[in-house]
């Protein structure tokens, strides 16, 4: 009889695994613990046993009954839980996750840095508090030059110390301290003496580029600017390369892109010009090269400067320039 009980227990354990797989725990219960089940069957055999065997077998059967009941309940609980787990509301909205964000200007700077690093440019930095010498004098902007009025500088100590009015001041620093060949880009804050309004900000970002070597000429400048415009605005962008005056370069260049809103027919975005001014550029002025100690008969180079903020607000659809640096931007 004892062996029989052990045998039943082993069979139950095996059956339990099978029934769990086929999720028929109720049938398993009936088979073992039902009125006509295996355990009752065993109990019904007790009267036929010897008295001394009854004392041993009785509790054993009971133990078996409790064991089976417990195992089935346990399996049932697991099974129920699993059934719950399998049901997922895939349509429910996700929890809010607090993630970080880069400033849009940082993102554009990084894009441009990546572009220029591919062409072998390093990223250069320089002070924002500048001297007249590096900000103006060495860039062929002598005192009394009209461009100095245009710049509308913020002075810390007139006339020698000011907040840089353009990132070109880093060019003069690099040209003075580094022997050609030079290839750098300069992303950086610049300042103008003007209250921040819808389209101009006292603090603005420029992205400057400079390449100096033997035999660098305007065809290289054109290639670089066109490639950059394609990188920023896609390969179908139409550019216009025209003559423009900047004191620190000669010959000077203005690069425009065909207005993407009106396709060049004229609209309010492009002020009915059909084109949007993207940047100023040119061949570094021989006086600027010489004032930084570079022989202009041996070396030549080009420079360009982009106002980054306009690019940033158009790319990210930001309503106006004040959102960028006035602390009124919230990321969503």
């Amino acid at each position, binding site marked *: 009889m004892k062996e029989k009980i052990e045998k039943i227990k082993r069979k139950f354990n095996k059956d339990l695994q099978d029934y769990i797989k086929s999720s028929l725990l109720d049938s398993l219960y009936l088979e073992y613990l039902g009125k006509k089940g295996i355990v009752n069957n065993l109990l019904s055999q007790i009267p036929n046993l010897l008295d001394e065997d009854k004392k041993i077998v009785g509790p054993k059967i009971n133990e078996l009954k409790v064991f089976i009941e417990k195992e089935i309940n346990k399996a049932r609980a697991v099974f129920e839980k699993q059934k719950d787990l399998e049901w997922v509301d895939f349509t429910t909205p996700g929890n809010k996750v607090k993630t*970080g964000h880069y400033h849009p200007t940082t993102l554009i700077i990084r894009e441009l840095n990546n572009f220029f690093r591919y062409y072998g440019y390093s990223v250069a930095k320089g002070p924002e*508090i500048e001297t007249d010498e590096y900000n103006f004098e060495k860039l062929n902007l002598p005192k009394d030059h*009209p461009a100095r009025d245009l710049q509308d500088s*913020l*002075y810390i100590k007139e006339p020698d110390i000011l907040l840089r009015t353009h990132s070109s001041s880093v060019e003069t620093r690099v040209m003075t301290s580094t022997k050609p060949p030079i290839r750098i880009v300069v992303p950086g804050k610049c300042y103008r003496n003007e209250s921040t309004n819808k389209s101009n900000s006292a603090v603005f970002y420029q992205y400057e580029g400079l390449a100096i070597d033997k035999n660098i000429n305007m*065809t290289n400048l054109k*290639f670089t600017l066109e490639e950059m415009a394609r990188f920023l605005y896609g390969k179908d962008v139409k550019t216009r390369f025209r003559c423009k005056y900047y004191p620190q370069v000669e*010959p000077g260049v203005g690069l425009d892109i065909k207005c993407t809103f009106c396709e060049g027919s004229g609209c309010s975005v492009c002020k009915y010009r059909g084109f949007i001014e993207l940047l100023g550029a040119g*061949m570094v002025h021989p006086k600027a090269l010489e004032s930084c100690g570079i022989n202009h008969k041996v070396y*030549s180079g080009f420079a360009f400067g982009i106002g980054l903020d306009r690019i940033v607000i158009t790319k990210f659809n930001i309503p106006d320039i004040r959102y960028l640096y006035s602390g009124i931007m919230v990321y969503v």
Partner: protein
Amino acid sequence: MKLPLIWLKDCIDTKKGPKEISDIYTSIGHMLDEPIKNDVLSLEVRQNRPDCLSIIGLARELSAVTGDSINEPQIAKPLKRISQKNYLDVRNSSKINRFITLHIKIKVGASPENIVKRLELYKIPSINNIVDLTNFVMVEQGQPMHVFDISKVHGRKLIIRQAEVEEKFTTLLGTSINLNEKDIVIADDEKILGLAGVIGGNSSKAIKESAEFIVEAANYNQASIRQSSRRHSIRTEASTRLEKYLSPKLPEIAVQRFIQLLYDNNIDFEILGYEDYSKGLNNINIKFNSKELKRIGGVDIDNEKILKILSRLNFGTEKEGDGLYNIKVPYYRTDIECEEDIIEEILRINGYENIPSNAINLSPPLKEITSKEYILENAIRDSLVKLGFDEHITEPLIGSTKNPNEIILENPFNKDKDALRTEIFQTLKQVIRTYKKNKREDVKIFEVGKYYLKEKNSYLEYSAVTAVVEGNYTFKDLKGYMENLLKDLNITRYEIKPKGSKGYVMQKELCLGKIKRNNFTLYISALTKALKSSQKYVETDVRNEIIEDITIEVPLKTYIGPIISNIKSISELVYSVDLIDELEKKYLKAVTFRITYKNPAKSITDKDVSPIKQKISRLVTSFS
């Protein structure tokens, strides 16, 4: 510059239409900046080309491209000094390059119709024949002129002098302005008649029947005119021209043209006097080598074409060798100073669109010179964004806080922005307010930027990162973020030295930054010094650790940091000490540390640990 095409065509025979003409101007440097209306172009003339603030100047530019022939306006014969009496007294010669006076007798009347029509196109109202003719000459030739009614000039003499400090002057528009010694004025012996190069006064207004005039055409130090115009916020047709470098030859051309127009329009006149103050004129010659055109421009243009372009621009050329020329610059081209200027002239008339586009020869690659600081700043941005912070960039300008180390601006545009921030946190406050206004409870922001300090007589700027938390976050969250950031940068050995309302982040003697209740700042240059080589992978095997929790009670305001570093310093086998619980009671707080013992080299046993445990328990009792 407004350019009425009818007027342009008085000076050039061209069959080109408005669109074609404006495209040419845009390409050669004078961009069309408004839509074309009624056949009037509005051009943004190149800053260094004041000669193009005139019809004839723009006609010459167009002709250089198209080859269309110019109808040079006729001018009368040059005049010699004629004067019975001295009408001109130039007292401030340093700022005057040229001053011509024409003393003339004339019958004032209505202007000829063709003159009125031309001026109308330019939106200058007609006044009378003499004033209109000077305005006509200004627009056509680019030289401002001025008429003085001699009966109103006391002493019948024009005195050109600097103004006195606080000298008052009422313009013809009726505004009264305070002059100073930087202004140049045209005066008689008792009053000011005009602010030189900028605007006339009341006494020059309303010329009616009078018969004798002084007509003036001058050239001044352009910076002085520019500054006067800006100082008094007066911009006129005269000042926009005279604030730039116009040729000092132009006044004589203008006067000759004025006289010619009197003849042409059958106006009766008699010249009574002509005086000319002049510092002399420079003729500019430049050596040009066509090889330089190839070197700088990168284009092949043959010598024949080069000569054709230069001749269309009225540049004289003398051949001095193969491709070598001596270039004579026409008087009105004050912008041409060096060989590169000639190169630009050839390229722009040949067309910038004809410049090919070529990559730079990239070999050999250049040495990378991007600074460590720049790379580190980007690593900081990456780490903080990963930790859920929003990056902000704020204008570093603040209203002065009277901090003696603050850098003050000498010419602020706004009193609320007259100084540079001494801490990045100062300008991040606005961002916090914005987040709160938007009901954001999860303020986690940072800026990588600069702060500025005045130290003795130097003005210094430093790069740093400041991160701020507000709303749902506690100090411990902030501290955790800072620790994570430093870990990302692979800076691990540092301790916090508390002092007052902040704690300094120290690596031995090097101060890496500071932490406050809701923000921390780390200094870029200190961080670059603390940087080690790249992070190493650390094997974590929990089976080989012994962990023990100990709880001690310490007074409420006890710094926990030093306790932890003391425990750590007891043995190298103390792998980590974490604060896992902190319970504040009335006077004491119960703090629970979880101490992990580990030996990277071999497995660790209770026998190794028990002497350390004893030391630790002696140590912690000293704190409680």
